[in-house]
């Protein structure tokens, strides 16, 4: 890439929008995943009996649905990211590329 091309992309508002939007979205989702996971694992470390609390009269404990829910959350978060990235972010990055071609 030449200096002019870099300059062009850097000043393209669509590029700025792409970088800002995606980085905010990606970090937000990452932090959600980290908070969910570390809340789970620190609960186990500090108060292991908490997840052993029974639900109702049976043997089922709240730890089981919570554990399964974390697996499902992980999958859903990837789905949410891919959906937005493959439409909105890819469209923006495509436009940035096209506009770069125009000046070349």
């Amino acid at each position, binding site marked *: 890439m030449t200096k002019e091309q870099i300059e062009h992309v850097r000043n393209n508002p669509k*590029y700025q929008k792409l970088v800002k939007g995606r980085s905010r979205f*990606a970090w937000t989702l990452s932090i959600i995943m980290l908070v969910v*996971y570390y809340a789970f694992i620190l609960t*186990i470390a500090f108060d292991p009996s908490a997840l052993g609390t029974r639900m109702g009269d049976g*043997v089922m404990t709240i730890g089981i649905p919570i554990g399964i829910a*974390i697996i499902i959350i*992980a999958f859903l978060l990837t*789905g949410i990211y891919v959906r937005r*990235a493959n439409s909105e972010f890819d469209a923006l*990055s495509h436009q940035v590329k096209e506009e770069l071609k125009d000046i070349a």
Partner: protein
Amino acid sequence: MKKLLFISLTLLLGAAAVASGTIEGEVQKQPLNVSAIIMFLLFVSGTLGITYWAAKRTKTAKDFYTAGGGITGFQNGMAIAGDYMSAASFLGISGLVYLKGYDGLIYSIGFLVGWPVILFLVSERLRNLGKYTFADVAAYRLKQTPIRTLAAFGSIATVILYLIAQMVGAGKLIQLLFGLPYELAVVLVGALMILYVTFGGMLATTWVQIIKAILLLSGATFMAIAVMAHFGFSLETMFAKAVEVHPNHQAIMAPGGLVSDPVSAISLGIALMFGTAGLPHILMRFFTVADAKEARKSVFFATGFIGYFYILTFIIGFGAIIMVLNNPQYLDVAKQAVSGGSPILGGNNMAAIHLSHAVGGNFFLGFISAVAFATILAVVSGLTLAGASAISHDLYANVFRRGSVDEMKEMKVSKIATVILGIVTIILGIAFEKQNIAFVVGLAFAIAASANFPVLFLSMFWSKLTTRGAVLGGSLGLAAAVMLVILGPIVWVQIFGYETAVFPYKYPALFSVTVAFLGIWFFSITDNSENAKNEREAFEAQDIRSQTGIGAEGASAH
């Protein structure tokens, strides 16, 4: 070359046939399982057929390393799942659930949560910047020689450790399931893996992994459904029965002793999360797809398959508590006489295997045994390819030949590296048979998390990173990971036999990853050289490419 492939194929099938004959002679604990052998032979001949097909299509270095970049997101997601769901996670996690109940789930969750983070922060940048190995990305704007040497060293160390663990597990498993002698089992796995990788490259490896993922997921699904059907599809009924028969009773429904203190908990989490994002054979899979869009889809599908698989292993483990534990058919009478309790044949990791017999008879036992073997083959092939690429692409082509090398020559070196790596693995697999290898996978993850990941991550995210910072910090992380594992409870106490560990924690990642990041930070910001200035300036162009894919590697035309 085709002729060679044909001869090796005949030899292998011959060896397997002879081996199946020897089983009859030395049946000890496991009955002769004809269906297992037939299904295994079907898998081997099928995958060798694919290797033959792939060999004809593997013409360039790009074909060899990345299957020409033409794998779809869905296929790659399957292949990633096939690469990641090792026999250790199938048999080990269901065995852990069988032994301790809930603790098995904690482990699975740790292995899964790294994936979304890889998607959000790593996968598309990696795809946009890299070509064949993750070192392409780490060395993008830094000095090739030192960065690639470090990355190759981290890759090869991770790959070899992981291979040892897989090989020893494979040898023992096959010995138990098929009655083959340990050494022959290891040689057979090594020989097949060399064949797949040298002839079929990434294309054959990918399809071996896809087929294995389909087999493993369908086998596990069948087992979980069979277990659930037994309890009228009621989880409560299943758990109630398991609590009744398990010696720990209600305790299996809650966390046990797997993670006891906060430091270990955080450290294990960091090792699994950052370690996954630093495994060379996993990172390499992102270069097999056409663009960032397909790279993202890969992780979405992979996370779905892996998460689904872990839910299945949880049900399978509980099913085994009910149907295998206390079942005289699977009881190891000899062991019980010595140690009491109700040990099962082959140890706890065989819980899923025995369950397959309990729910589906000899035929299904044969299927699951063959799947377990296929699983090992798929994982070791991916590892070997990643290790060979580090040797040929990073060390040979870019360090030794300074980047000016004929593509065909590079591919040849890669194939030679595969054969050597395969032989080394076979030797190590045999050497480690009777060793305690509990630390090996932990060490592989620790190195991946402390040396590979910090350098890769900061090269993509931190503009002030310099070669000096990356090399010194990455080396410190690597050294810290190795030192702390040696001084920790598993090696220092269990293997060396000392009274107490110098370093009290089983998982060093929290400390070694911190050392790596601090080291990289400190030696980068204090680097005032001309070179460092240029490297910082080059970040913007790299960042634009990583964000947009401008100038990224495309897929081959064919």
